[in-house]
């Protein structure tokens, strides 16, 4: 009843091809963005920003990048942490070594270098896929781990091995309060999400999906597997690199290579799987889920433990979290391999015909 498309006829191809074809969707998204940009900063406290909102926004951006590679183009990647690291360290270097480098340009340059590294380690995808490609991306991960630890140039020859940035500002507007940081990251997220959506519903997106679904047939139609795969690596790494820069600059302030370890790669991959592979929306869902889950468990488990008279130690808590995490991954893969995004679209389908059952 509320979600009916009655009367919404499309008279041009252009209107049929737009991102949100149902006008209720368009209003909803506008409202959501307005809420995120205006209402949230007014009401959220510092803890909410630091622990939930900012990580969510940045990781959603990274998950978006990973989804393009893994979800849309079907190339499995366990090296996303490394690409984030490249983005962060190269942004750091251009920020620190070049006088008067604007923040945004530094971050984008980090993304650019991440693109180069991503494409280099994406070359094996032209020969192998699946597990074998996963191993190649792991090579990227470990190599970058070592590089940023041992090669002094990247850390500006800092003896402690970690780097830090401070006093970030854009065009004179200082980014120091949690709200300002949040809005800065949110801006990146919205812009990149829009660009990504355009790519994904355009010709290159179809090329990516064709490669994912059946790459031999794609070649027969005239799609160049090399161009499609490398462009997926390039675009994905760019976005992930920028996210890495944001993570280091805005969220952490000071970091070392361990911030972008293989655990981060796994985390991003799980976001994509649980959120929904091949879905922009899914990246958001996945990021929210993964960011909120540990916090939820931290509150829930001790309480549940008390109910049955067991005090849960912190060590046991973290082990149980890991167990539940693994179990959830498996559960999702069995029940809904297409993730939360699929559940969401099923819900919308039901909503379209509500209150009728079918």
């Amino acid at each position, binding site marked *: 009843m509320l979600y009916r498309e009655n009367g919404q006829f499309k008279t041009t191809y252009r209107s049929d091809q737009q991102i949100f074809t149902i006008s209720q969707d368009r209003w909803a998204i506008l409202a959501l963005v307005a809420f995120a940009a205006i209402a949230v900063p007014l009401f959220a406290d510092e803890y909410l920003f630091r622990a939930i909102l900012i990580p969510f926004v940045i990781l959603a951006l990274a998950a978006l990048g990973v989804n393009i590679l893994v979800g849309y183009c079907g190339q499995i990647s366990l090296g996303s942490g490394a690409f984030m690291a490249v983005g962060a360290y190269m942004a750091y270097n251009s920020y620190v070594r070049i006088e008067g480098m604007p923040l945004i340009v530094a971050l984008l340059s980090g993304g650019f270098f991440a693109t180069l590294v991503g494409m280099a380690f994406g070359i094996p995808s032209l020969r192998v896929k699946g597990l074998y490609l996963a191993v190649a991306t792991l090579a990227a991960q470990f190599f970058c781990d070592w590089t940023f630890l041992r090669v002094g140039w990247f850390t500006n020859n800092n003896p402690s091995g970690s780097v830090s940035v401070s006093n970030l500002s854009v065009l004179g507007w200082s980014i120091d309060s949690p709200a300002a940081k949040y809005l800065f990251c949110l801006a990146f997220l919205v812009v990149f999400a829009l660009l990504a959506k355009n790519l994904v519903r355009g010709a290159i997106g179809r090329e990516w999906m064709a490669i994912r679904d059946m790459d031999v047939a794609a070649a027969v139609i005239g799609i160049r597997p090399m161009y499609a795969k490398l462009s997926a690596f390039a675009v994905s790494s760019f976005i992930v690199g920028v996210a890495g820069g944001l993570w280091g600059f805005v969220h952490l302030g000071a970091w070392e290579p361990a911030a972008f370890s293989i655990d981060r790669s796994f985390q991003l991959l799980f976001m994509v799987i649980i959120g929904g592979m091949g879905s922009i929306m899914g990246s958001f869902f996945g990021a929210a889920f993964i960011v909120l889950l540990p916090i939820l468990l931290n509150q829930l488990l001790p309480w549940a433990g008390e109910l049955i008279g067991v005090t849960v130690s912190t060590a046991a808590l973290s082990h149980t979290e890991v167990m539940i995490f693994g*179990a959830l991954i498996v559960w999702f893969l069995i029940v809904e391999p297409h993730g939360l995004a699929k559940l969401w679209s099923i819900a919308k389908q039901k909503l379209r015909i509500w209150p009728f059952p079918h």
Partner: protein
Amino acid sequence: MAGMLYALVALGFVLIFKASGVFNFAQGAMVLFAALAMARFSEWIPGLLGIDSKLVGNLLAFCAAAALMFVLAWLIERLVLRHLVNQEGVTLLMATLGITYFIDGLGQTLFGSDIYKIDIGMPKDPLFAFESMFQGGVLLNKEDMVAAAIAAALVAALSLFFQKTATGRALRAVADDHQAAQSIGIPLNRIWVIVWCVAGITALVAGIIWGSKLGVQFSLTTVALRALPVIILGGLTSVPGAIIGGLIIGVGEKLSEVYLGPLVGGGIEIWFAYMLALVFLLFRPQGLFGEKIIDRV
């Protein structure tokens, strides 16, 4: 040598892949879990039953740990694999990733997360051999030799099992084509339980040997990641490949650390194996002994 240890873990991977076409990321976690089980059981059982003899205590602990691995295998098949029969490889891979996390957490919850020792009486003193050929002789580690012997025995037993028995034949059929195997009446579920039990035993053996050498600690899970390049080198479908690959990687890592390390600042053990695997992936993805990967339209 670390190479032999890698080879043992790689063996587990290869066995499951050969038999079911599934790449089991959780093998590393299983090694740790098995090792933990063994370590703790060998502590608890003598106390519980009042046994003095080390040998009997260890034997019982081994049986208990093996039984536990069988239960684990059965649970994995029942709760996870059965539902994912027709999914593509990527989904199965992710599922085993999830299982990895789960087993990680489970092991530490059940058995605790300190460092434990396994003592099964492996000889710890070194042996000097070939004294006539090389000056001072070549330093061989008796422990490694025993490990190699155990690994060889395991491989031989498993090869016999796969080649000679009907179950082994069924396993190979399943690895080739799940649906075809099902359609001729092979009970897929039971086969998978068997496969994972075999992998579990392999994990147990590997875990015991690792554990007795290094102590049972959490870093054992990184073992899975270290073993991946071994499989790439040796070939995912080749048992001898796993052994030889393990040896090559083990030796290669040490050599590269000694010779290349000082040139670039040290610590390259981490990625040497992976870079080597990368080179193989670009030029010979099937590894030294694996089967060529063919795509059909």
